[in-house]
């Protein structure tokens, strides 16, 4: 057994007594109802109150009981559309597009309401994957804050009036007409804009993205004369070096990149190869977590790392003069070596918005002949058009009064533009301002006169060309809920084309530009059915051709010198701003599903925060409220000043960052997101300064200081902690895996050991085999190597299963209802990395394990939790009386209790003392998203992952109706189908040929907490990193992990071998836990008890061993 230690939070790492106490306690606080009652109810309530309540309830019960059953009505269609059968779902191919976010999707509709997003497997870009944002987009349709009518100066209006006024004003506009939009990927909308331009000559289009790729655009223009973001093919890259680039989370096309990247990381015994990924980054990203080598650097060193790399791979570059620690220098050298060995099959990417940095990136890629292989200028991303220079120029023009009309499309500069005050000043000087935004956002509130709201994408016809040549269609899945109109239609009607139906316009555009000819109708119908179409400018379908390369013509010398001066001159306090995977640049701020999805690394939701390293915090004496640092409750609040602006934020302390670096997410601090629940965090955009080229998200020489304390972040990091970390994450290296295909898989090795199996096959549960060995036995497997922590599964699970949103307050109190969470584990070797600057990070999706020996089932006093013959751990909500014994007894901590009426099923409590902040999701509009096949749980019942039993039942029924066997892969759980990397598979374990069985037979497969013999139906595949040794792994040279378990082989002749193995284990463990009285607890609970059951049945010897083990711990 290795000595590797995994931890989720610092409390756990240090194992403070408070943490131990808390982790033992499933419900770590007084029941909130009691708290509420204490605070609200009168302290002198006595006999009279009792009698009053008694009288009231008796009367209420009588009245309720004497009520007649209400007459329920049912109204069929007058003319039933042929394709709609009530109760059956329809799927329509469409495309989720929001600025630079793209996902080709299938929209599930029930009775005409879109309720769920699935990936479109025909897509050449996203390949069936989805993102958290795409999954959550369905709830933004039912957003009550959306504009319900067009408005003039804040007063409701109607389209004819508004059209008339706008037309007359446009005709007499004084100055330029500017369409300020975020990236437009729709060819038809572009065509509509051209029509508008033809009508009004002085029209300009300025593309604005708060988190732009301007640096890349300018560098590519200088290097190749092409001002685009080229296509990246991670699939073809054997070596990837990413410098501060979160390409799996937020950069350019993360869903696509995740699928392509992971394709090269899937590993099998037949093909034990995988790409190698080096990550240098200034904050911790999900991409860094997936990397083989992850090194933290300062934001000011981003360019310097690239300069060093350029020199190492043979490019001409001077020294950057940056001071790297030895470990970083070594890794740069290693990366350069790997790159040189993979010319034309490698990829360097950087997320920096500094053109100089991107220039160096281009130089390295060019030096390595990557253009035309892994980078493709022919199939560029059209989505990233945001141009910082043009935006700065526009604001100057507006202030100078040169802009006569401003049309805003899906941009919110009054919030997101760093110098929002300047923009607002300019806006006041624009004669005609029109906003197509869907709500009264900050910009609309700052004085936009005409609000002409666009449809939600689920209500509108449109198209998209996210990568050149890759088209997709957007079709409406519901009639517009409100009196809105698509932007294209508005532009066309103002440009005098009359009332043009945008659907006809798109067809016309496609017919003349894309798929013209006699077969247009067929081709159109196919494109509409598939949702996607690959072609190029009317030439019909294209074959995968040689990709367009490009010749690097840029000069790197000035870039190198600028980077060097930055690296050397940097220092002081550095701030790096980033967009996170959920809220993005702020446009998803009013989406409660995204707000409540914890950041995969920091595990905080409903807030942004300043992330600092442990060393920075210790140096300044700051605390983030984790228990071990608890003189006060909650996080300290610090102020961060740069660019003359100051913001205040609570801190969270995270390993994996350099000293004196602060990372802050943008997108928070919206003043007018829509709902007051979503007005959270602080706006970090003002910290950005324009550097003459672009807004650089890496800021040097900022200042910071503590202002107050006690801020309570809603952090889920340690809410649901599995008690025992020994064999939760199993990891190995590619080198070891090649030698032994179960290396690092300690649990798997034991599972395969026949003697171990025999020893543990004594059970209190009786024999399940008769029922479980025939029919179905559902199982799920997760490939830890493929999980990037993107959280699409979490959101998909929430929406599929009507999991309620509980709000910030309740998350803080550990009341989040998520059926599935992604556990994030750090691991590091404190000897090599005392400041935890370069830890390894692993993700583990965690849901109900559907144990066949489920500990939750036998403690339920009312049998609400019980086992099905198909291996499902069933939860009968209507039986549950809320004792919460099951949650207490669940070793995986996956059961969730409805403390409140979170979904508002029982309106009796609305606006009373029990009405907390659960109003997030209870209005009738947002309830339209609920899945009608899944019960809405009410207050006081337990719930948990059901393996999407509604989908199982549906799949079985389809098979029965067809009188055929169920096909493998026919039933997909929500988490599985949302995953862009196919990290999750689900199926029937009794079906010998099922994929889940294939995964389970893989020697990387293991089940969690083997010692308690719960017989999980969920298993995990060992994570493999392509490197020599695992960070933080301390090899015991006399007792390598493999030898340990070799000992099991001669198990038969006694327990010596066994004892040896466990002894080693005990040592390691004792060392880790060597504080206070914890060892005792651990020995007693972790082993003595559970195994007591076993050896009670005649395994005296075995039990004795474990007794010793417990004793060992105690001594340590």
């Amino acid at each position, binding site marked *: 057994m290795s000595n590797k230690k995994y931890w989720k939070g610092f409390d756990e790492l240090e194992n403070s007594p408070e943490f131990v106490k808390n982790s033992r306690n499933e419900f770590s606080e007084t029941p909130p109802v009691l708290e509420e009652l204490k605070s609200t109810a009168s302290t002198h309530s006595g006999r009279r109150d009792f009698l009053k309540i008694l009288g009231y309830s008796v009367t209420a019960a009588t009245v309720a*009981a004497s009520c007649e*059953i209400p*007459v*329920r*009505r*049912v*109204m*069929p*269609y*007058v*003319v*039933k559309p042929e394709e709609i*059968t*009530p*109760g*059956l779902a329809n799927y329509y191919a469409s495309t989720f597009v929001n600025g630079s976010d793209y996902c080709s999707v299938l929209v599930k509709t029930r009775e005409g309401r879109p309720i769920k997003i699935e990936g479109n497997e025909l897509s050449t870009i996203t390949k069936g994957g989805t993102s958290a944002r795409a999954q959550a987009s369905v709830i933004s349709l039912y957003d009550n804050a959306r504009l319900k009518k067009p408005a003039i100066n804040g007063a409701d209006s109607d389209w004819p009036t508004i059209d008339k006024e706008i037309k007359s004003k446009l005709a007499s506009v004084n100055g330029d007409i500017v369409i300020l939009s975020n990236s437009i990927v729709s060819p038809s909308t572009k065509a509509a804009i051209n029509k508008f331009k033809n009508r009004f000559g002085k029209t300009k289009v300025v593309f604005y993205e708060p988190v732009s790729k301007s640096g890349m655009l300018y560098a590519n223009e200088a290097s190749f004369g092409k001002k685009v973001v080229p296509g990246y093919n991670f699939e073809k890259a054997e070596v990837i070096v990413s410098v501060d680039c979160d390409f799996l989370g937020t950069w350019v096309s993360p869903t696509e990149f995740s699928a392509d990247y992971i394709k090269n990381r899937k590993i099998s015994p037949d093909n034990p190869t995988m790409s190698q990924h080096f990550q240098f980054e200034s904050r911790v990203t999900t991409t860094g977590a997936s990397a083989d080598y992850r090194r933290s650097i300062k934001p000011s060193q981003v360019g310097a790392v690239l300069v060093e790399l350029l020199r190492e791979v043979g490019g001409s570059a001077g020294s950057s003069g940056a001071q790297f620690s030895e470990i970083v220098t070594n890794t740069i050298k290693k990366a350069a070596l790997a790159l040189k060995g993979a010319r034309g099959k490698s990829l360097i990417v950087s997320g920096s918005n500094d053109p100089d940095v991107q220039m160096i990136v281009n130089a390295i890629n060019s030096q390595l002949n990557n253009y035309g292989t892994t980078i493709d200028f022919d199939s560029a991303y059209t989505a990233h058009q945001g141009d910082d220079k043009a935006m700065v120029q526009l604001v100057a023009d507006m202030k100078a009064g040169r802009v006569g009309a401003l049309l805003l499309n899906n941009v919110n500069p009054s919030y997101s533009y760093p110098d929002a005050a300047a923009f607002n000043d300019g806006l006041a000087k624009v004669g005609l301002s029109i906003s197509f935004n869907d709500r009264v956002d900050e910009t609309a509130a700052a004085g936009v006169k005409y609000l002409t709201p666009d449809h939600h994408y689920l209500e509108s016809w449109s198209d998209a060309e996210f990568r050149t040549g890759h088209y997709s269609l957007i079709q409406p899945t519901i009639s517009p809920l409100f009196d809105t109109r698509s932007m294209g239609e508005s532009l066309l009607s103002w440009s005098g084309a009359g009332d043009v139906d945008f659907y006809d316009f798109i067809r016309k555009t496609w017919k003349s530009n894309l798929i013209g000819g006699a077969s247009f109708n067929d081709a159109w119908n196919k494109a509409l059915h598939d949702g996607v179409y690959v072609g190029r400018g009317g030439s019909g379908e294209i074959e995968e051709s040689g990709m367009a390369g490009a010749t690097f013509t840029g000069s790197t010398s000035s870039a190198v010198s600028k980077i060097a001066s930055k690296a050397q001159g940097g220092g002081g306090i550095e701030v790096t701003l980033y967009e996170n995977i959920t809220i993005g640049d702020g446009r998803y701020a009013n989406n409660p599903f995204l707000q409540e999805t914890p950041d995969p690394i920091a595990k905080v939701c409903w807030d942004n925060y300043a992330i600092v390293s442990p060393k920075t915090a210790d140096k300044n004496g700051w605390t983030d409220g984790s228990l071990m640092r608890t003189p006060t409750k909650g996080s300290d609040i610090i102020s961060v000043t740069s660019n003359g602006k100051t913001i205040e934020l609570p801190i969270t302390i995270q390993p994996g960052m350099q000293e004196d670096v602060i990372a802050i997410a943008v997108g928070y601090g919206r003043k007018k997101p829509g709902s007051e629940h979503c007005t959270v965090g602080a706006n970090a955009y003002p910290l950005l300064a324009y550097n003459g080229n672009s807004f650089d998200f890496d800021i040097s020489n900022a200042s910071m200081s503590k202002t107050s304390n006690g801020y309570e972040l809603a952090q889920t990091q340690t809410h649901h902690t599995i008690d025992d970390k020994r064999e939760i994450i199993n990891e190995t290296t590619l080198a070891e895996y090649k030698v032994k295909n179960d290396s690092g898989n300690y649990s798997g090795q034991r599972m395969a050991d026949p003697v171990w199996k025999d020893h543990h096959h004594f059970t209190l549960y009786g024999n399940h085999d*008769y*029922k479980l*060995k*025939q*029919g*179905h036995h559902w199982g799920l497997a997760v490939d830890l190597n493929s999980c990037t922590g993107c959280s699409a599964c979490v959101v998909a699970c929430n929406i599929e299963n009507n999991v309620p949103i509980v709000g910030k307050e309740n998350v803080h109190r550990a009341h989040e209802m998520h059926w599935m969470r992604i556990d994030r584990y750090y691991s590091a070797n404190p000897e090599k990395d005392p400041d935890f600057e370069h830890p390894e990070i692993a993700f583990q999706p965690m849901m109900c394990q559907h144990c066949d020996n489920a500990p939750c089932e036998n403690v339920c006093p009312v049998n609400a939790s*019980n086992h*099905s*013959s*198909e291996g*499902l751990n*069933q*939860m*009968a*909500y*209507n*039986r549950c009386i809320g004792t919460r014994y099951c949650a207490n007894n669940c070793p995986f901590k996956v059961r969730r209790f409805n403390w409140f009426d979170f979904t508002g099923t029982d309106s009796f409590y609305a606006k009373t003392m029990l009405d907390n902040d659960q109003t997030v999701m209870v209005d009738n509009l947002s309830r339209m998203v609920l899945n009608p*096949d*899944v*019960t*809405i749980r009410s207050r006081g019942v337990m719930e948990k992952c*059901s393996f999407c*039993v*509604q989908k199982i*039942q549906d799949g*079985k*029924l389809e*098979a*029965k*109706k*067809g*009188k*055929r*066997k*169920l096909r493998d892969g026919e039933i997909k759980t929500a988490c599985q189908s949302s995953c862009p990397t196919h990290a999750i598979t689900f199926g*029937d374990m*009794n*079906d010998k040929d099922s994929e889940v069985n294939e995964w389970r037979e893989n020697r990387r497969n293991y089940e969690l907490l083997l010692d308690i013999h719960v017989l999980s139906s969920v298993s995990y595949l060992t994570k493999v990193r392509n490197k020599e040794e695992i960070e933080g792994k301390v090899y015991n040279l006399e007792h390598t992990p493999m030898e340990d378990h070799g000992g099991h082989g001669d198990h038969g002749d006694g327990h010596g071998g066994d004892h040896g193995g466990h002894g080693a284990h005990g040592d390691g463990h004792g060392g880790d836990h060597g504080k206070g009285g914890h060892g005792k607890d651990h020995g007693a609970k972790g082993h003595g008890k559970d195994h007591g059951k076993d050896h009670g049945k005649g395994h005296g010897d075995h039990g004795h061993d474990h007794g010793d083990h417990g004793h060992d711990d105690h001594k340590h």
Partner: protein
Amino acid sequence: MLRYINNAIQNKILIYFAFVITGLFGFNSSVLAQDVAAGESAYKINCASCHKVHTKLVGPALAGVYDKYEREWLYKWIKNSSAMIKSGDERANAIYNEYNQSVMTAFPTLSEGDMDNILAYVQQETLAGPPVAAVTGGTGEGGAAVSNSFGPTQIYILIITLALILITFVLAKVLSTLGNLVRVREGLPEYEPFSMGKFFRNRGLKLGLGLAAFGLLAYTTYDNAGSLGRQEGYAPAQPIKFSHKLHAGINGVDCQYCHSGAAKGKSAVIPSPNVCMNCHKQIQEGPEYGTKEIQKIYDAIGFDPKTKKYIEGYEQKPIDWVRIHNLPDHVYFNHAQHVVAGGVECQTCHGEIQEMEVVGQHSSLGMGWCIDCHRETDVKFASNEYYSIYEKYHEEMKAGERSNVKVEDIGGLECQKCHY
């Protein structure tokens, strides 16, 4: 009843003869049997809405149609009758004019084989003769197993019980008096004489009776609370006086012709007026209410019965039916599972719907009712390949250790089969 039996025997004999006769024409009788079955389903799907075998509906009665016209003519007619009419075919025009110049729906997708099947079915039905109205009512009265009414039997029992109690008291008094008389004669001390008042003042009895009363009350409360919200027998008035007896019973329209969702999914579907219009475009008058009720369909969809045309630009009004069968929100029920996979007849749960003038809820729809059926019903194990995964059961059945598999055996009583 006798007449029914006679009829049934007669039918069987006729069917037998039909087989023999068709067999003479070179058909293999087993193949024919299949064809008739296929024909029956095709007939119900395509023809039954306008035709009946023995009586006129929208279109003519089909009895003997296979002899009246030659096959080739029939093929052409069924595939596209209007083309035939236009081509000036005499017989085609004769029918056209006889039926008010209404055009029969064209069925271009039916193959000649399909049509042969349908005609085979029509032939069988023709030979079987017209059905007798009471044929399907076989099990009607016998199903009163769940009667809760306080009938005459109960009254007799009550009277007898009271009489017996009275007699007991009288006898006790007599016994006590006589016993004391004997004792007086023998010079022994008298027992306390039996007195009704004293008997009822007994503490033990009071306690016993009290407990019994409490128990009874508790049981009744529990029992009745269980059925709170259940509406067995609920037969509300509907906005249209639609008679299932007329449509499903007398006219024999297949249930799934209107409730087309039953085979597809969760909901059996209340037919939308455009389905009604398939027939009621022609049938504008009913036997009971004349045009009054049918007019309500026209009002909903916007149809002018005089011109037989839909009114353009009409604002359609949905029909606001009263829902009879209500399950609680936490129950998942799927019609297709029961109708298709389970092969359950509609009548099993909905009662003899073809007899109901006004539809009422036949079953309690309580969980106990569901469970009982799941315990007793055999799974269609042999005929559905889906169930081949239950290998042990199949082996046991092969070995003769097991004669059937109940729904319960494949998990039909588990919580998450219906609650999720």
